C-alpha cells in the first residue's frame, strides 16, 4: 500500500529558522535508510504558508485567500510518499524519525476504483 506522511510541524513550519546542520544530517541519514529499504517513492518540502494560497468554493463563487493562515497547528511543512506493506510498517518507520517536535500524520492512499 501507499501512504502519505504529512509533517505537521505547527508554527515551526512557518518559522524562518532553518534546521541546524546536525539535525539536517540526522534527517538525511534517516531518509537514506528509507530509500535503501525501498520505502520512499516520493517526497517534498513545502514553502511557508505565508506564500501559500487558498481557494474557497461557495456555490459558483470562488474566493482566493492569501497566506499566512490562522490554523497553524494543521499546517503541513512537508510530505513523504511511502510504499509499505501495512500501516504498522509505516508507523514503525515513522517512530524512527529523528524529530523532537511536531506531529506527523500517516494516511493511506486509496488504490484506484474498481480494484
Amino acid at each position, binding site marked *: 500500500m501507499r501512504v502519505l506522511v504529512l509533517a505537521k510541524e505547527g508554527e515551526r513550519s512557518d518559522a524562518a529558522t532553518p534546521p541546524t546542520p546536525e539535525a539536517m544530517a540526522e534527517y538525511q541519514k534517516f531518509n537514506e535508510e528509507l530509500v*535503501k529499504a*525501498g520505502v520512499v517513492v516520493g517526497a517534498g518540502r513545502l514553502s511557508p504558508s505565508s506564500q501559500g494560497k487558498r481557494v474557497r468554493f461557495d456555490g459558483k463563487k470562488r474566493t482566493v485567500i492569501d497566506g499566512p493562515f490562522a490554523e497553524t497547528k494543521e499546517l503541513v511543512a512537508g510530505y513523504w*510518499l511511502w*510504499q509499505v*506493506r501495512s500501516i*504498522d510498517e509505516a508507523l514503525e518507520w515513522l517512530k524512527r524519525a529523528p524529530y523532537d517536535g511536531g506531529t506527523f500524520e500517516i494516511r493511506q492512499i486509496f*488504490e484506484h476504483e*474498481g480494484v
Partner: protein
Amino acid sequence: MAAPSRSVRSSSTRACEGALAIGPRRGEAPEGPGRAETEATEAHRAIEAIWRIESARLIAGLARIVGDIGTAEELAQDALVAALEQWPTLGVPERPGAWLMGTAKHRAIDLVRRRKTLERKHEEIGRDVERAQEGMDLDTAIDEDVGDDLLGLIFAACHPVLSKDARVALTLRVLGGLTTEEIARGFLVPVPSIAQRIVRAKRTLAEAHVRFEVPGGPERVARLASVLEVIYLIFNEGYAATAGEDWVRPALCEEALRLGRILAELAPTEPEVHGLVALMEIQASRLHARVGPSGEPVLLLDQDRARWDRLLIGRGLAALERAERLGGAMGPYALQAAIAACHARAATAAETDWPRIVALYDAVAQLAPSPVVELNRAVAVGMAFGPAAGLDLVDALVPEPSLKAYHLLPAVRGDLLRKLGRSEEARTEFERAASLTENVRERELLQRRAAECAAERMAG
C-alpha cells in the same frame, strides 16, 4: 495472513513459520475487552512490522557469521520468538532492530564457538576444516555496514544452483520477510509445497557450500542475471498471473518492485539493475488500468491512459535514464524498459512510436533471441507496417515447438487475422488461445473476442 491464531507457547521455536500469525489479526476484535490484551495485540502488530523491516538485514548479518542461510534464519527467528515473549509485557525497545540483532548475535557467536571446538576435535583425527569465519572478529563483524551482507544474501538466495521456483520462494522468504503462507497464497501453491521448497533450497545451498559474498569478475554477470530473473519472475506472476481467478496480484508486483529498488541502492553502478527497475516501475504504472470494472483484463491499447500512475512512470523514466547514463550497450531489461517507455510517453494509443518499438525489439532479439521476443516483435511490426507484415512473422513462428502451448501465439494471430477481415480464422485462433490459458479472466476475454469474430462474420 489468514493463519489461525495460536499462542506463543504452543508453537515450537523452530516451527516459527507461524510465529507472526500469533494473536488476533488486524480488524478482528481482541479476545477480551481488557486493556492488557489490546496492548499485547498492538505489540504483536508492531513486532510483525518490525520483522518485515529488519529480517533481511538480520539474516544477512547472521549468515556472514555462521556461513549458512538455514542456520541464520533459525537464529533470527529465535530472536523473533524472544521478542514475542518479552515485548508484549516489557514494551517494544527503543531500537528494536538493534535488540533483535544483539539477541541473535550472542546465539550466533555461541554457535560458532561450539563449532570451532568441534572442528578442532575433528582436526585432531586428521580432518582439515577451514572455515570462512576463522579469524573473524565476531563482535565487530556484525556492526559493520550491512549493505554487502544484504547483497551477498540476495546473490546466495538467487544462486543458479537452485531451481527457479526455489530461488523465488527463498528470496521472498529471506529478503521479503514473507511467511510461507503468504508465499503460498501469492503463487497459489499449497503451503507444504512452499515449505518443502524452502527447506530443500537451504539444504542445497549448504551442500553446495555457497559463500555469502558479492561475486566479482565474469561470474558476477551471470549471477546478477540470475538475481534479476528472480525479481522479474516475482513481478510477472503478479502482473499477469499465469493461473487462478485474478488477472493481476498487485502484492507480488509490490514485493518485486521493493526488491528491485533495494537492489538498485545496493548495486547502483549496474545498468541492468536500473533497467529492470525502470521496466517494473513503468509496467506497474498500468496495473490498475489493465483491470476492468469486473476484474477482466484490459489490453494495453484499450487502456484508459488517465488511469496510469504518473508517479511510477516518472520513476521508471528516471531509472531508465540512470541505466542509459551508466553507458555501455543496453541490456535486455533496459531495452524492454525503453519499449515500455515508448508506450508511457504516448498520450494516446494512436501516438505510439511503433517503428521505434520495432527497432528496440530488433535489439532485444539480437541480445536475447527467443520465440516470445519474436512474437512481440511481430505485434510491433503489425502495428508499424500493417497486419499483413505482422502475420507473415507470426506464421513463421507457428511451427516453433516452445510456443506450442503458449496462448499468446494464437491470440496475436487471431488479432492480426481479424484486422485483415478474416473473421472465421480469427475466431478459431481466439478459441484455441482461450483453451490454452490457465487464467480464468484471460480465458473469458479470449472467448469474448472469439464471439465478437463470430458476430462480425454474421454481419459481414
